[in-house]
Protein backbone atom coordinates (compact mmCIF):
# COMPACT_ATOMS: atom_id res chain seq x y z
CA UNK A 1 0.00 0.00 0.00
CA UNK A 2 0.97 3.62 -0.38
CA UNK A 3 3.02 4.69 2.64
CA UNK A 4 2.21 7.99 4.29
CA UNK A 5 4.88 9.57 6.45
CA UNK A 6 3.96 11.86 9.32
CA UNK A 7 6.23 14.85 8.77
CA UNK A 8 5.61 15.99 12.35
CA UNK A 9 2.41 16.51 14.27
CA UNK A 10 0.66 19.80 13.68
CA UNK A 11 -2.81 21.13 14.42
CA UNK A 12 -5.11 21.64 11.46
CA UNK A 13 -6.09 25.09 12.76
CA UNK A 14 -2.49 26.19 12.22
CA UNK A 15 -2.88 24.97 8.65
CA UNK A 16 -5.83 27.34 8.42
CA UNK A 17 -3.73 30.18 9.84
CA UNK A 18 -1.00 29.59 7.24
CA UNK A 19 -3.55 29.26 4.44
CA UNK A 20 -5.25 32.49 5.52
CA UNK A 21 -1.93 34.34 5.46
CA UNK A 22 -1.13 33.02 1.99
CA UNK A 23 -4.63 33.79 0.70
CA UNK A 24 -4.31 37.29 2.17
CA UNK A 25 -1.02 37.85 0.39
CA UNK A 26 -2.46 36.60 -2.89
CA UNK A 27 -5.64 38.67 -2.75
CA UNK A 28 -6.06 41.96 -0.94
CA UNK A 29 -9.84 41.45 -0.74
CA UNK A 30 -9.32 38.76 1.92
CA UNK A 31 -10.25 39.97 5.42
CA UNK A 32 -10.42 38.00 8.67
CA UNK A 33 -12.92 38.38 11.49
CA UNK A 34 -12.97 36.65 14.84
CA UNK A 35 -15.05 36.72 17.99
CA UNK A 36 -12.26 37.03 20.56
CA UNK A 37 -10.46 33.89 19.35
CA UNK A 38 -7.63 35.29 17.26
CA UNK A 39 -5.04 33.09 18.97
CA UNK A 40 -7.15 29.93 18.98
CA UNK A 41 -7.91 30.35 15.27
CA UNK A 42 -4.22 31.05 14.52
CA UNK A 43 -4.99 34.40 12.91
CA UNK A 44 -2.04 36.14 14.58
CA UNK A 45 0.22 36.10 11.53
CA UNK A 46 -2.53 37.46 9.27
CA UNK A 47 -3.37 40.15 11.83
CA UNK A 48 0.28 41.18 12.14
CA UNK A 49 0.76 41.31 8.36
CA UNK A 50 -2.56 43.00 7.56
CA UNK A 51 -3.72 44.90 10.67
CA UNK A 52 -6.38 46.86 8.76
CA UNK A 53 -7.83 43.69 7.27
CA UNK A 54 -8.08 41.92 10.61
CA UNK A 55 -11.40 42.76 12.27
CA UNK A 56 -11.87 41.92 15.91
CA UNK A 57 -15.57 41.47 16.68
CA UNK A 58 -15.49 40.68 20.38
CA UNK A 59 -17.64 37.94 21.88
CA UNK A 60 -20.56 38.65 19.58
CA UNK A 61 -20.76 35.94 16.93
CA UNK A 62 -24.15 36.93 15.53
CA UNK A 63 -22.91 40.39 14.68
CA UNK A 64 -19.74 38.91 13.21
CA UNK A 65 -21.80 36.97 10.68
CA UNK A 66 -23.79 40.04 9.66
CA UNK A 67 -20.72 42.27 9.44
CA UNK A 68 -18.99 39.65 7.30
CA UNK A 69 -22.00 39.56 4.99
CA UNK A 70 -21.81 43.33 4.63
CA UNK A 71 -18.10 43.19 3.87
CA UNK A 72 -18.70 40.44 1.32
CA UNK A 73 -21.47 42.40 -0.41
CA UNK A 74 -19.00 45.29 -0.71
CA UNK A 75 -16.52 43.00 -2.46
CA UNK A 76 -14.35 41.68 0.36
CA UNK A 77 -13.64 37.98 0.98
CA UNK A 78 -14.27 37.58 4.72
CA UNK A 79 -13.20 34.58 6.77
CA UNK A 80 -15.09 34.41 10.08
CA UNK A 81 -13.41 32.29 12.73
CA UNK A 82 -14.59 30.81 15.99
CA UNK A 83 -15.08 27.44 17.65
CA UNK A 84 -17.22 25.14 15.50
CA UNK A 85 -20.24 25.25 17.79
CA UNK A 86 -20.22 29.04 18.12
CA UNK A 87 -19.89 29.69 14.39
CA UNK A 88 -22.66 27.23 13.43
CA UNK A 89 -25.32 26.35 15.99
CA UNK A 90 -25.11 29.62 17.84
CA UNK A 91 -25.59 31.67 14.68
CA UNK A 92 -27.60 29.35 12.48
CA UNK A 93 -30.28 31.83 11.54
CA UNK A 94 -27.67 34.51 10.80
CA UNK A 95 -25.76 32.13 8.54
CA UNK A 96 -29.01 31.13 6.86
CA UNK A 97 -30.26 34.64 6.09
CA UNK A 98 -27.05 36.63 5.63
CA UNK A 99 -24.71 34.06 4.10
CA UNK A 100 -26.66 31.21 2.49
CA UNK A 101 -29.90 32.91 1.38
CA UNK A 102 -28.07 36.20 0.86
CA UNK A 103 -25.48 34.31 -1.20
CA UNK A 104 -22.60 36.29 0.23
CA UNK A 105 -18.99 35.27 -0.31
CA UNK A 106 -18.33 34.46 3.35
CA UNK A 107 -15.95 31.69 4.48
CA UNK A 108 -16.79 30.10 7.81
CA UNK A 109 -13.60 29.01 9.56
CA UNK A 110 -14.71 26.47 12.12
CA UNK A 111 -12.08 25.30 14.57
CA UNK A 112 -12.11 22.91 17.54
CA UNK A 113 -14.73 20.73 15.85
CA UNK A 114 -15.69 17.35 17.28
CA UNK A 115 -14.67 15.49 20.42
CA UNK A 116 -10.94 16.00 19.78
CA UNK A 117 -11.43 19.44 21.27
CA UNK A 118 -10.93 17.39 24.40
CA UNK A 119 -10.97 18.66 27.95
CA UNK A 120 -13.47 21.51 27.57
CA UNK A 121 -16.28 18.99 27.27
CA UNK A 122 -19.59 18.80 25.46
CA UNK A 123 -20.56 22.50 25.48
CA UNK A 124 -17.66 23.13 23.09
CA UNK A 125 -17.53 19.80 21.23
CA UNK A 126 -20.01 20.03 18.41
CA UNK A 127 -20.82 16.74 16.68
CA UNK A 128 -23.74 18.30 14.78
CA UNK A 129 -22.15 21.08 12.73
CA UNK A 130 -21.79 19.21 9.43
CA UNK A 131 -25.49 18.37 9.54
CA UNK A 132 -26.42 22.02 10.12
CA UNK A 133 -24.19 23.33 7.37
CA UNK A 134 -25.15 20.63 4.85
CA UNK A 135 -28.77 21.64 5.30
CA UNK A 136 -28.15 25.19 4.07
CA UNK A 137 -28.86 25.49 0.33
CA UNK A 138 -25.70 26.20 -1.66
CA UNK A 139 -23.29 25.84 1.25
CA UNK A 140 -20.00 24.08 0.45
CA UNK A 141 -18.86 21.88 3.36
CA UNK A 142 -15.20 20.91 3.69
CA UNK A 143 -13.41 18.92 6.41
CA UNK A 144 -9.74 18.47 5.46
CA UNK A 145 -7.55 15.82 7.07
CA UNK A 146 -4.31 17.45 8.20
CA UNK A 147 -2.30 20.67 8.41
CA UNK A 148 -1.22 20.70 4.77
CA UNK A 149 -4.65 19.93 3.37
CA UNK A 150 -6.31 22.50 5.65
CA UNK A 151 -3.84 25.11 4.41
CA UNK A 152 -4.59 24.25 0.78
CA UNK A 153 -8.34 24.06 1.41
CA UNK A 154 -8.23 27.56 2.92
CA UNK A 155 -6.53 28.89 -0.21
CA UNK A 156 -9.11 27.10 -2.38
CA UNK A 157 -11.97 28.50 -0.29
CA UNK A 158 -10.66 32.04 -0.80
CA UNK A 159 -10.63 31.52 -4.57
CA UNK A 160 -14.08 29.95 -4.68
CA UNK A 161 -16.99 32.35 -5.22
CA UNK A 162 -19.71 31.60 -2.64
CA UNK A 163 -20.30 30.49 0.94
CA UNK A 164 -17.93 27.84 2.30
CA UNK A 165 -17.92 25.99 5.62
CA UNK A 166 -14.37 24.92 6.47
CA UNK A 167 -14.10 22.59 9.45
CA UNK A 168 -10.90 21.76 11.31
CA UNK A 169 -9.69 20.86 14.77
CA UNK A 170 -7.76 21.72 17.86
CA UNK A 171 -5.21 18.95 18.56
CA UNK A 172 -1.86 18.28 16.94
CA UNK A 173 -2.23 15.34 14.58
CA UNK A 174 -0.02 13.69 11.96
CA UNK A 175 0.73 15.83 8.91
CA UNK A 176 1.08 13.57 5.92
CA UNK A 177 -0.38 15.02 2.71
CA UNK A 178 1.58 16.85 0.01
CA UNK A 179 1.99 20.49 1.08
CA UNK A 180 2.10 21.59 -2.57
CA UNK A 181 -1.00 19.75 -3.78
CA UNK A 182 -3.76 22.28 -4.49
CA UNK A 183 -7.08 21.44 -2.88
CA UNK A 184 -9.88 20.65 -5.25
CA UNK A 185 -13.32 21.48 -3.87
CA UNK A 186 -15.73 18.64 -4.58
CA UNK A 187 -13.07 15.96 -5.02
CA UNK A 188 -12.82 12.80 -2.95
CA UNK A 189 -9.19 11.75 -2.61
CA UNK A 190 -8.40 8.05 -2.91
CA UNK A 191 -5.58 7.90 -0.38
CA UNK A 192 -4.99 4.20 -0.68
CA UNK A 193 -6.27 1.82 -3.33
CA UNK A 194 -7.63 -1.47 -2.03
CA UNK A 195 -9.94 -4.21 -3.17
CA UNK A 196 -11.57 -5.86 -0.13
CA UNK A 197 -13.40 -2.94 1.50
CA UNK A 198 -13.59 0.87 1.48
CA UNK A 199 -13.42 3.31 4.34
CA UNK A 200 -14.92 6.68 3.42
CA UNK A 201 -13.74 9.25 5.93
CA UNK A 202 -12.90 12.90 6.52
CA UNK A 203 -10.95 15.08 8.93
CA UNK A 204 -8.98 13.41 11.71
CA UNK A 205 -10.36 10.00 10.74
CA UNK A 206 -8.32 9.87 7.52
CA UNK A 207 -5.03 9.22 9.33
CA UNK A 208 -6.75 6.67 11.56
CA UNK A 209 -8.13 4.86 8.51
CA UNK A 210 -4.69 4.80 6.89
CA UNK A 211 -3.24 3.34 10.08
CA UNK A 212 -5.99 0.72 10.04
CA UNK A 213 -5.09 -0.09 6.43
CA UNK A 214 -1.49 -0.75 7.49
CA UNK A 215 -2.59 -3.02 10.34
CA UNK A 216 -4.89 -4.94 7.99
CA UNK A 217 -2.32 -5.20 5.21
CA UNK A 218 -0.24 -7.38 7.55
CA UNK A 219 -3.29 -9.65 7.79
CA UNK A 220 -3.67 -9.82 4.02
CA UNK A 221 -6.62 -7.47 3.85
CA UNK A 222 -6.58 -4.76 1.18
CA UNK A 223 -8.38 -1.64 2.41
CA UNK A 224 -9.28 1.30 0.21
CA UNK A 225 -9.22 4.64 2.02
CA UNK A 226 -11.15 7.53 0.47
CA UNK A 227 -10.76 10.99 1.99
CA UNK A 228 -14.09 12.68 1.35
CA UNK A 229 -12.70 16.09 2.24
CA UNK A 230 -15.61 17.88 0.58
CA UNK A 231 -18.83 16.65 2.13
CA UNK A 232 -20.96 18.96 0.02
CA UNK A 233 -20.98 18.82 -2.94
CA UNK A 234 -20.21 15.13 -2.70
CA UNK A 235 -17.94 13.42 -5.25
CA UNK A 236 -20.61 10.89 -6.16
CA UNK A 237 -18.65 9.29 -9.01
CA UNK A 238 -15.63 8.54 -6.84
CA UNK A 239 -17.80 7.11 -4.07
CA UNK A 240 -19.79 4.87 -6.39
CA UNK A 241 -16.63 3.77 -8.22
CA UNK A 242 -15.00 2.67 -4.98
CA UNK A 243 -17.98 0.74 -3.65
CA UNK A 244 -18.46 -0.91 -7.05
CA UNK A 245 -14.89 -2.13 -6.77
CA UNK A 246 -14.79 -3.32 -3.16
CA UNK A 247 -18.46 -4.09 -2.54
CA UNK A 248 -18.19 -3.29 1.17
CA UNK A 249 -17.95 0.10 2.80
CA UNK A 250 -17.68 1.88 6.13
CA UNK A 251 -18.13 5.59 6.73
CA UNK A 252 -16.03 6.95 9.60
CA UNK A 253 -16.34 10.51 10.89
CA UNK A 254 -15.90 12.64 13.97
CA UNK A 255 -19.54 13.71 13.92
CA UNK A 256 -22.86 12.28 14.95
CA UNK A 257 -24.93 10.01 12.75
CA UNK A 258 -27.67 12.53 11.98
CA UNK A 259 -26.80 14.54 8.90
CA UNK A 260 -23.13 13.66 8.72
CA UNK A 261 -20.92 12.20 6.01
CA UNK A 262 -22.45 8.76 6.57
CA UNK A 263 -25.98 9.89 5.80
CA UNK A 264 -24.73 11.97 2.90
CA UNK A 265 -23.12 8.93 1.28
CA UNK A 266 -26.09 6.73 2.17
CA UNK A 267 -28.33 9.20 0.38
CA UNK A 268 -26.30 8.97 -2.82
CA UNK A 269 -26.06 5.19 -2.75
CA UNK A 270 -29.76 4.71 -2.00
CA UNK A 271 -30.57 6.58 -5.20
CA UNK A 272 -27.80 5.48 -7.52
CA UNK A 273 -26.15 2.27 -6.34
CA UNK A 274 -27.89 0.58 -3.39
CA UNK A 275 -25.28 -1.00 -1.13
CA UNK A 276 -25.00 -1.88 2.52
CA UNK A 277 -23.00 0.60 4.60
CA UNK A 278 -21.54 0.45 8.09
CA UNK A 279 -21.21 3.59 10.14
CA UNK A 280 -18.61 4.72 12.64
CA UNK A 281 -19.51 8.02 14.27
CA UNK A 282 -20.62 9.60 17.51
CA UNK A 283 -24.07 8.07 17.26
CA UNK A 284 -26.71 10.18 18.92
CA UNK A 285 -24.64 11.47 21.79
CA UNK A 286 -22.91 14.49 23.27
CA UNK A 287 -19.19 14.56 23.92
CA UNK A 288 -17.46 14.73 27.31
CA UNK A 289 -14.23 15.69 29.02
CA UNK A 290 -11.04 13.74 28.26
CA UNK A 291 -7.93 13.85 26.14
CA UNK A 292 -8.51 13.68 22.38
CA UNK A 293 -6.96 10.19 22.17
CA UNK A 294 -9.00 8.90 25.13
CA UNK A 295 -12.21 10.22 23.63
CA UNK A 296 -11.55 8.90 20.13
CA UNK A 297 -10.96 5.46 21.66
CA UNK A 298 -14.04 5.72 23.88
CA UNK A 299 -16.23 6.71 20.93
CA UNK A 300 -14.67 4.01 18.78
CA UNK A 301 -13.13 6.38 16.26
CA UNK A 302 -9.48 5.29 16.15
CA UNK A 303 -7.41 2.99 13.93
CA UNK A 304 -7.93 -0.07 16.13
CA UNK A 305 -11.71 0.29 16.02
CA UNK A 306 -11.69 0.87 12.25
CA UNK A 307 -9.59 -2.30 11.76
CA UNK A 308 -12.03 -4.26 13.96
CA UNK A 309 -14.98 -2.99 11.97
CA UNK A 310 -13.36 -3.94 8.67
CA UNK A 311 -12.64 -7.44 9.96
CA UNK A 312 -16.25 -7.78 11.08
CA UNK A 313 -17.55 -6.56 7.71
CA UNK A 314 -15.39 -9.08 5.86
CA UNK A 315 -16.46 -12.05 7.99
Amino acid sequence: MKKYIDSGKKDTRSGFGEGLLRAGKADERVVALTADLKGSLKMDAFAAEFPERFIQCGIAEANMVGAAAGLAIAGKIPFIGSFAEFVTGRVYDQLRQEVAYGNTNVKIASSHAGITLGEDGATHQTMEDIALMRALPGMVVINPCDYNQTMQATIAAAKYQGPVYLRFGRPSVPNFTDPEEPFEIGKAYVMNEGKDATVFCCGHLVWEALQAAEILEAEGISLEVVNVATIKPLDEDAIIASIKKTGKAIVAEEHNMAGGLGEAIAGVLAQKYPAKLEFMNGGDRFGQTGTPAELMALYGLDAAHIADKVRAVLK
Partner: protein
Amino acid sequence: MDKENLQKIASQVRRDLIRMVTSAKSGHPGGSMSTTDILTALYFEVMDHNPATWTRDGKGQDQFILSAGHLAPVYYSILARAGYFPVSELGTLRKMGSRLQGHPSIRRGLPGITQCSGSLGQGVSVAAGLALAKKLDGDKHFVYVLCGDGESEEGQIWEGAEFATHHSLGNLIGMTDWNGQQIDGPVESVSGGGDLQLKWQAFGWNTVTADGHDMEAIVTAFQKAKEMGKKTNRPTMILFKTDMGHGVDFMAGTHKWHGKAPSAEQCEAALAQLEETLGDY
Protein backbone atom coordinates in the same frame (compact mmCIF):
# COMPACT_ATOMS: atom_id res chain seq x y z
CA MET B 1 -35.70 70.59 -0.58
CA ASP B 2 -39.09 70.59 -2.25
CA LYS B 3 -41.33 69.74 0.68
CA GLU B 4 -44.50 69.62 -1.38
CA ASN B 5 -43.00 67.24 -3.88
CA LEU B 6 -41.82 64.90 -1.10
CA GLN B 7 -45.30 64.96 0.44
CA LYS B 8 -46.81 64.12 -2.94
CA ILE B 9 -44.49 61.15 -3.35
CA ALA B 10 -45.28 59.96 0.17
CA SER B 11 -49.02 60.11 -0.51
CA GLN B 12 -48.60 58.02 -3.65
CA VAL B 13 -46.36 55.53 -1.84
CA ARG B 14 -49.00 55.05 0.87
CA ARG B 15 -51.61 54.47 -1.85
CA ASP B 16 -49.29 51.99 -3.53
CA LEU B 17 -48.57 49.95 -0.44
CA ILE B 18 -52.19 49.79 0.68
CA ARG B 19 -53.23 48.59 -2.78
CA MET B 20 -50.34 46.11 -2.88
CA VAL B 21 -51.14 44.59 0.50
CA THR B 22 -54.86 44.50 -0.26
CA SER B 23 -54.20 42.70 -3.52
CA ALA B 24 -51.82 40.25 -1.86
CA LYS B 25 -54.36 39.70 0.95
CA SER B 26 -51.44 39.71 3.41
CA GLY B 27 -48.43 41.80 4.36
CA HIS B 28 -47.46 44.57 6.74
CA PRO B 29 -49.10 47.95 6.11
CA GLY B 30 -48.77 49.48 9.62
CA GLY B 31 -45.00 49.89 9.83
CA SER B 32 -44.82 50.62 6.12
CA MET B 33 -47.05 53.64 6.71
CA SER B 34 -45.11 54.83 9.74
CA THR B 35 -41.86 54.80 7.73
CA THR B 36 -43.20 56.16 4.41
CA ASP B 37 -42.19 59.75 5.08
CA ILE B 38 -38.74 58.81 6.36
CA LEU B 39 -37.95 56.61 3.37
CA THR B 40 -39.37 59.15 0.93
CA ALA B 41 -37.04 61.79 2.31
CA LEU B 42 -34.13 59.35 2.33
CA TYR B 43 -34.50 58.19 -1.28
CA PHE B 44 -35.75 61.41 -2.88
CA GLU B 45 -33.74 64.03 -0.96
CA VAL B 46 -30.97 62.64 1.24
CA MET B 47 -29.19 59.66 -0.32
CA ASP B 48 -26.57 59.93 -3.03
CA HIS B 49 -27.75 57.08 -5.24
CA ASN B 50 -28.43 56.38 -8.88
CA PRO B 51 -30.78 53.58 -9.97
CA ALA B 52 -29.19 53.53 -13.43
CA THR B 53 -25.74 52.67 -12.12
CA TRP B 54 -26.74 50.85 -8.93
CA THR B 55 -24.91 47.60 -8.13
CA ARG B 56 -25.26 45.36 -5.13
CA ASP B 57 -21.77 46.19 -3.87
CA GLY B 58 -22.83 49.83 -3.53
CA LYS B 59 -19.50 51.20 -4.70
CA GLY B 60 -19.53 54.97 -5.16
CA GLN B 61 -23.05 55.40 -3.79
CA ASP B 62 -24.84 55.64 -0.47
CA GLN B 63 -26.38 52.33 0.61
CA PHE B 64 -29.55 51.40 2.45
CA ILE B 65 -30.29 48.26 4.46
CA LEU B 66 -33.83 47.47 5.58
CA SER B 67 -33.33 45.57 8.81
CA ALA B 68 -37.06 45.28 9.46
CA GLY B 69 -37.71 43.25 6.33
CA HIS B 70 -41.47 43.11 6.85
CA LEU B 71 -41.57 46.73 5.72
CA ALA B 72 -41.18 45.33 2.21
CA PRO B 73 -44.35 47.03 0.86
CA VAL B 74 -43.10 50.57 1.45
CA TYR B 75 -39.57 49.61 0.39
CA TYR B 76 -40.76 48.22 -2.95
CA SER B 77 -42.96 51.21 -3.68
CA ILE B 78 -40.14 53.63 -2.86
CA LEU B 79 -37.68 51.71 -5.08
CA ALA B 80 -40.13 51.57 -7.98
CA ARG B 81 -41.07 55.24 -7.67
CA ALA B 82 -37.35 56.11 -7.52
CA GLY B 83 -36.80 54.29 -10.81
CA TYR B 84 -35.21 51.00 -9.78
CA PHE B 85 -37.87 48.90 -11.50
CA PRO B 86 -41.22 49.48 -13.23
CA VAL B 87 -44.08 50.55 -10.95
CA SER B 88 -46.30 48.12 -12.89
CA GLU B 89 -44.53 45.32 -11.01
CA LEU B 90 -45.81 46.51 -7.63
CA GLY B 91 -49.07 44.57 -8.08
CA THR B 92 -47.15 41.28 -8.02
CA LEU B 93 -46.21 41.57 -4.32
CA ARG B 94 -46.28 38.20 -2.54
CA LYS B 95 -47.49 36.39 -5.66
CA MET B 96 -45.90 33.25 -7.04
CA GLY B 97 -42.98 34.00 -9.34
CA SER B 98 -42.75 37.66 -8.30
CA ARG B 99 -39.48 39.47 -7.76
CA LEU B 100 -41.34 41.17 -4.89
CA GLN B 101 -41.04 38.35 -2.37
CA GLY B 102 -42.90 38.59 0.94
CA HIS B 103 -39.68 39.84 2.48
CA PRO B 104 -36.84 41.45 0.49
CA SER B 105 -34.64 38.97 -1.36
CA ILE B 106 -31.54 39.31 -3.49
CA ARG B 107 -32.44 36.02 -5.14
CA ARG B 108 -34.87 37.37 -7.72
CA GLY B 109 -32.76 40.03 -9.38
CA LEU B 110 -34.83 42.93 -8.10
CA PRO B 111 -32.69 46.08 -8.51
CA GLY B 112 -32.07 48.14 -5.40
CA ILE B 113 -32.09 45.27 -2.90
CA THR B 114 -28.71 44.97 -1.20
CA GLN B 115 -29.45 42.13 1.21
CA CYS B 116 -32.15 39.71 2.26
CA SER B 117 -34.01 40.54 5.47
CA GLY B 118 -37.00 39.30 7.41
CA SER B 119 -35.45 37.54 10.36
CA LEU B 120 -35.13 40.54 12.65
CA GLY B 121 -32.24 42.25 14.34
CA GLN B 122 -29.54 41.61 11.76
CA GLY B 123 -29.46 44.75 9.63
CA VAL B 124 -27.27 46.90 11.87
CA SER B 125 -24.54 44.25 11.62
CA VAL B 126 -24.79 44.07 7.83
CA ALA B 127 -24.81 47.85 7.50
CA ALA B 128 -21.80 48.05 9.82
CA GLY B 129 -19.96 45.60 7.56
CA LEU B 130 -20.83 47.72 4.52
CA ALA B 131 -19.75 50.88 6.33
CA LEU B 132 -16.48 49.27 7.40
CA ALA B 133 -15.80 48.23 3.79
CA LYS B 134 -16.38 51.81 2.64
CA LYS B 135 -13.94 53.00 5.29
CA LEU B 136 -11.31 50.45 4.21
CA ASP B 137 -11.80 51.43 0.56
CA GLY B 138 -11.71 55.19 1.18
CA ASP B 139 -15.27 55.62 -0.13
CA LYS B 140 -16.81 58.63 1.64
CA HIS B 141 -20.42 57.59 1.12
CA PHE B 142 -22.85 56.76 3.91
CA VAL B 143 -24.66 53.57 4.84
CA TYR B 144 -28.20 53.84 6.21
CA VAL B 145 -30.11 51.17 8.12
CA LEU B 146 -33.73 51.14 9.27
CA CYS B 147 -34.86 49.21 12.36
CA GLY B 148 -38.06 49.05 14.32
CA ASP B 149 -38.37 49.88 18.01
CA GLY B 150 -39.89 46.45 18.67
CA GLU B 151 -37.09 44.94 16.61
CA SER B 152 -34.62 46.53 18.98
CA GLU B 153 -35.54 43.88 21.54
CA GLU B 154 -33.24 41.60 19.52
CA GLY B 155 -29.84 41.23 21.20
CA GLN B 156 -27.90 41.31 17.96
CA ILE B 157 -28.91 44.95 17.42
CA TRP B 158 -26.77 45.80 20.42
CA GLU B 159 -23.89 43.61 19.31
CA GLY B 160 -23.95 45.60 16.08
CA ALA B 161 -24.21 48.87 17.98
CA GLU B 162 -21.08 48.09 20.00
CA PHE B 163 -19.18 46.91 16.92
CA ALA B 164 -19.98 50.07 14.96
CA THR B 165 -18.75 52.28 17.77
CA HIS B 166 -15.62 50.20 18.31
CA HIS B 167 -14.72 50.50 14.63
CA SER B 168 -15.47 54.26 14.52
CA LEU B 169 -18.10 54.00 11.81
CA GLY B 170 -19.03 57.67 11.47
CA ASN B 171 -20.40 56.79 8.02
CA LEU B 172 -23.17 54.64 9.50
CA ILE B 173 -26.56 56.24 10.12
CA GLY B 174 -29.34 54.27 11.75
CA MET B 175 -33.03 55.08 11.76
CA THR B 176 -35.48 53.76 14.31
CA ASP B 177 -39.15 53.67 13.43
CA TRP B 178 -40.14 54.66 16.96
CA ASN B 179 -43.87 53.99 16.57
CA GLY B 180 -44.31 52.31 19.95
CA GLN B 181 -46.14 49.31 18.49
CA GLN B 182 -45.31 45.70 17.70
CA ILE B 183 -47.34 42.63 16.74
CA ASP B 184 -48.55 41.76 20.22
CA GLY B 185 -49.32 45.32 21.30
CA PRO B 186 -47.66 48.52 22.52
CA VAL B 187 -43.87 48.05 22.88
CA GLU B 188 -43.93 49.01 26.55
CA SER B 189 -46.49 46.31 27.29
CA VAL B 190 -44.58 43.62 25.36
CA SER B 191 -41.01 44.11 26.45
CA GLY B 192 -39.24 47.39 25.72
CA GLY B 193 -37.94 48.47 29.10
CA GLY B 194 -35.60 51.41 29.52
CA ASP B 195 -35.03 54.50 27.42
CA LEU B 196 -34.26 53.70 23.79
CA GLN B 197 -32.35 56.92 23.17
CA LEU B 198 -30.21 56.45 26.28
CA LYS B 199 -29.48 52.89 25.22
CA TRP B 200 -28.02 54.05 21.89
CA GLN B 201 -26.06 56.75 23.66
CA ALA B 202 -24.73 54.23 26.15
CA PHE B 203 -23.43 52.18 23.23
CA GLY B 204 -21.49 55.20 22.03
CA TRP B 205 -23.78 56.42 19.26
CA ASN B 206 -24.76 59.99 18.55
CA THR B 207 -28.51 60.33 18.68
CA VAL B 208 -30.98 62.66 17.01
CA THR B 209 -34.73 62.68 17.56
CA ALA B 210 -37.24 63.98 15.07
CA ASP B 211 -40.90 63.90 14.10
CA GLY B 212 -41.00 61.13 11.50
CA HIS B 213 -43.98 62.65 9.69
CA ASP B 214 -42.65 66.19 9.24
CA MET B 215 -40.61 66.34 6.02
CA GLU B 216 -38.57 69.36 7.08
CA ALA B 217 -37.75 67.79 10.44
CA ILE B 218 -36.80 64.51 8.77
CA VAL B 219 -34.43 66.08 6.25
CA THR B 220 -32.89 68.28 8.92
CA ALA B 221 -32.34 65.25 11.13
CA PHE B 222 -30.48 63.45 8.33
CA GLN B 223 -28.29 66.50 7.69
CA LYS B 224 -27.52 66.71 11.39
CA ALA B 225 -26.70 63.00 11.56
CA LYS B 226 -24.26 63.23 8.65
CA GLU B 227 -22.51 66.19 10.22
CA MET B 228 -22.30 64.48 13.61
CA GLY B 229 -20.95 61.31 12.06
CA LYS B 230 -18.25 63.15 10.14
CA LYS B 231 -17.29 65.23 13.16
CA THR B 232 -17.18 62.46 15.78
CA ASN B 233 -16.30 59.34 13.76
CA ARG B 234 -19.10 57.64 15.65
CA PRO B 235 -22.28 56.12 14.24
CA THR B 236 -25.52 58.06 14.63
CA MET B 237 -29.03 56.85 15.37
CA ILE B 238 -32.00 58.99 14.37
CA LEU B 239 -35.02 58.10 16.49
CA PHE B 240 -38.05 59.05 14.42
CA LYS B 241 -41.22 59.47 16.43
CA THR B 242 -43.89 57.95 14.23
CA ASP B 243 -47.43 56.55 14.24
CA MET B 244 -48.05 53.07 12.99
CA GLY B 245 -50.56 53.26 10.16
CA HIS B 246 -49.99 57.02 9.70
CA GLY B 247 -51.98 58.63 6.92
CA VAL B 248 -55.27 56.79 7.29
CA ASP B 249 -57.37 57.63 10.34
CA PHE B 250 -58.74 54.17 11.05
CA MET B 251 -55.33 52.52 10.68
CA ALA B 252 -53.27 54.98 12.73
CA GLY B 253 -51.85 54.58 16.22
CA THR B 254 -52.60 50.90 16.74
CA HIS B 255 -50.69 47.64 16.42
CA LYS B 256 -53.73 46.03 14.81
CA TRP B 257 -52.54 46.87 11.29
CA HIS B 258 -49.01 45.59 11.86
CA GLY B 259 -49.51 42.52 9.73
CA LYS B 260 -53.05 42.62 8.40
CA ALA B 261 -54.31 43.39 4.92
CA PRO B 262 -57.31 45.69 4.50
CA SER B 263 -60.49 44.30 2.94
CA ALA B 264 -61.55 45.72 -0.43
CA GLU B 265 -63.94 48.13 1.34
CA GLN B 266 -61.29 49.20 3.86
CA CYS B 267 -58.87 49.74 1.00
CA GLU B 268 -61.33 52.06 -0.75
CA ALA B 269 -61.90 53.97 2.49
CA ALA B 270 -58.15 54.31 3.01
CA LEU B 271 -57.49 55.47 -0.55
CA ALA B 272 -60.16 58.13 -0.17
CA GLN B 273 -57.88 59.72 2.44
CA LEU B 274 -54.74 59.62 0.26
CA GLU B 275 -54.36 61.78 -2.82
CA GLU B 276 -53.30 60.07 -6.03
CA THR B 277 -50.40 62.31 -7.02
CA LEU B 278 -48.24 60.34 -9.45
CA GLY B 279 -50.75 57.94 -10.94
CA ASP B 280 -51.56 54.55 -9.46
CA TYR B 281 -49.61 51.58 -10.79
